[in-house]
């Protein structure tokens, strides 16, 4: 048992005597500390300004170039029957409805695959594995997975489908599989971080009420972490929704609308953007009317890019809304 009769006086006996003036800051040191503080403040604020330049530039460019062709016609037609720079019978120049459908379906497919798996993997890591060897391996491999080049993910999904279904099985779902490979690490990592910060108190409180582990996890832990998980998933979606290379390989490119995720090629917005960019310009025959626009592919490309950004923005908005609705009410 520790000694109760501490004699504080005794403790200071033998203590060195200190000349505190030695430790007083000099005037110049104080000034230099202040200067350093100010410099860091400026640098940190500057970091933000610097980061804003590309952002504003990207958004502005896309907006200015994209608005030119972004109209209802563009959003409701696909690219069938679009020849050269000529207008279609509806008066437009083709559109992206097929690409919007493709992007939404393929991304949704990727979400359906990777979010449950990623989330359950995070649950395993945080709630069950407690940093064992297996958990460490998984964590390491998740990091490695985040470094898989998207094109390799595309090759992988393409080959898997070729082996399983047969040659030339290019379809939206293969695209979903390749995207989910890219999404998974982000989902696992962000969910893991979010689950980790759920206070242990809450788990213990739940167990103490005689609640099973499964219900504790689903109803307390996941529920508490939900806003964070949602924003992590949104981040993951944003990561893959703009992927081009793997989708070129797995989902291909087609001018018409295909709403069947599991059969037939499917165009997505990024692929569309890339294809139109690759066309660069359209030919107008010598006898063409004034309605024939040679620069139409680039214009479609920018407009589709704008649509893509808008979709991501809307998703982001939904995510934030969900996060807000389910947010943990802050104290007082």
């Amino acid at each position, binding site marked *: 048992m520790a000694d109760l009769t501490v004699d504080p006086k005794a403790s200071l006996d033998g203590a060195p005597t200190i000349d505190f003036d030695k430790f007083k800051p000099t005037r110049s040191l104080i000034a230099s500390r202040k200067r350093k503080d100010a410099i860091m403040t400026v640098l940190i604020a500057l970091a933000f300004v610097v980061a804003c330049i590309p952002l504003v530039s990207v958004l502005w460019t896309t907006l200015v170039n994209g608005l030119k062709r972004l109209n209802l016609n563009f959003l409701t037609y696909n690219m069938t029957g679009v020849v050269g720079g000529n207008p279609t019978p509806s008066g437009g120049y083709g559109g992206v409805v097929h690409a919007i459908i493709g992007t939404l379906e393929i991304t949704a497919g990727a979400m359906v695959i990777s979010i449950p798996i990623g989330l359950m993997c995070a649950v395993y890591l945080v709630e069950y594995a407690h940093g064992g060897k297996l958990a460490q391996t998984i964590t390491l491999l998740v990091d490695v997975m985040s470094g898989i080049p998207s094109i*390799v993910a595309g090759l992988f999904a393409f080959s898997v489908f070729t082996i399983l279904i047969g040659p030339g099985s290019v379809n939206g779902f293969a695209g979903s599989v390749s995207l989910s490979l890219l999404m998974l690490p982000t989902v696992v990592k962000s969910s893991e971080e979010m689950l980790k910060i759920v206070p242990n108190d809450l788990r213990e409180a739940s167990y103490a009420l005689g609640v099973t*582990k499964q219900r504790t996890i689903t109803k307390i832990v996941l529920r508490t972490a939900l806003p964070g998980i949602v924003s992590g998933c949104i*981040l993951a979606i944003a990561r893959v929704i703009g992927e*081009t290379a793997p989708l070129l390989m797995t989902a291909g490119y087609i001018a018409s609308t295909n709403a069947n995720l599991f059969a037939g090629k499917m165009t997505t917005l990024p692929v569309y953007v890339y294809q139109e960019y690759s066309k660069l310009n359209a030919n107008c025959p010598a006898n063409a009317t004034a309605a024939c626009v040679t620069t139409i592919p680039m214009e479609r490309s920018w407009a589709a890019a704008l649509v893509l950004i808008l979709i991501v923005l809307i998703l982001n908005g939904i995510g934030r809304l969900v996060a807000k609705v389910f947010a943990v009410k802050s104290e007082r």
Partner: protein
Amino acid sequence: MSSQSSAAVMPAASGKTADKVFRGIAYACGILILVVLAAVFLFLLVQAWPLIGGDQGANSQTISDFTGGKASNFWGYVGPLLFGTVLVSALALIISFFISIGIALFISHYAPKNLATALSYVVDLLAAIPSVIYGLWGGLILVPAIYPFWNWVATYLGVIPLFNGPAANPSRTVATVAVVLAVMILPIITSLSRDIFLQAPRLQQEAALALGATKWEMIKLAVLPFGKSGVVSASMLGLGRALGETMAVLMILSPGLTYSFKLLQASQNQTIAANIAAQYPEANELGVSVLIGTGLVLFLITFVVNYIARRITEKKVA
């Protein structure tokens, strides 16, 4: 006090099976990650097999076809690609790391609350811009716009070998690509670091201030040490993204197969991912094997980098 509501207490469903099933699913999902990664690895290996176990004469023919005769064996081919990949991603990481930390600190510790919320949103927005748009923007807007700057750098800092002039015009160079990749990975590092800095314990920050620390000293004492390991893993995520980025590099970089550090000159380096994308559509079967072989090398490099990073952070934590 009577337990008048004991009627409400019925024997609960034990939930034992649900418990087991749930645990099983979670475990299976954990294992699935291993399986998938093993599958990817095996796939790469199998597809690259002709390269390793196949007819070496045909291989060197394919490779010299890829390189226009500059390399005829696999290592001679993948070496410069690997060098280029690491160079570009490392530069991107270096550029974005400090800026990301700066923004994250700005949001977590400097900006007033309303501004911080707005800024967080802006960062998320940046994260949401698809890479093909960065490719378009980088290739069409940034390349011409940044030339005067690189030219200035080459003129005044040209003595440093990295910045040896003359700056290529158009600037489809490693330097420009690194800038674009930096912009792309910036939001990833920023948003994770921000979340971590926001959770830096208040108590220790107050302790630092109470000792008479300036704000920056407080950050150095109480925020950065706390955030270190989290920032490292955020950076690894960002690095992973940079290593694997395909489209933006493909659309911007003028590739070359050298071991050169001349960041401002064109046709010096190429990344593995962009090279696969550039060669794949026209490649024959053996060509695809070679390309996948390069993918395998990238995969192994990612593995090693992550393993080392993990080792380092583990040591720091312990």
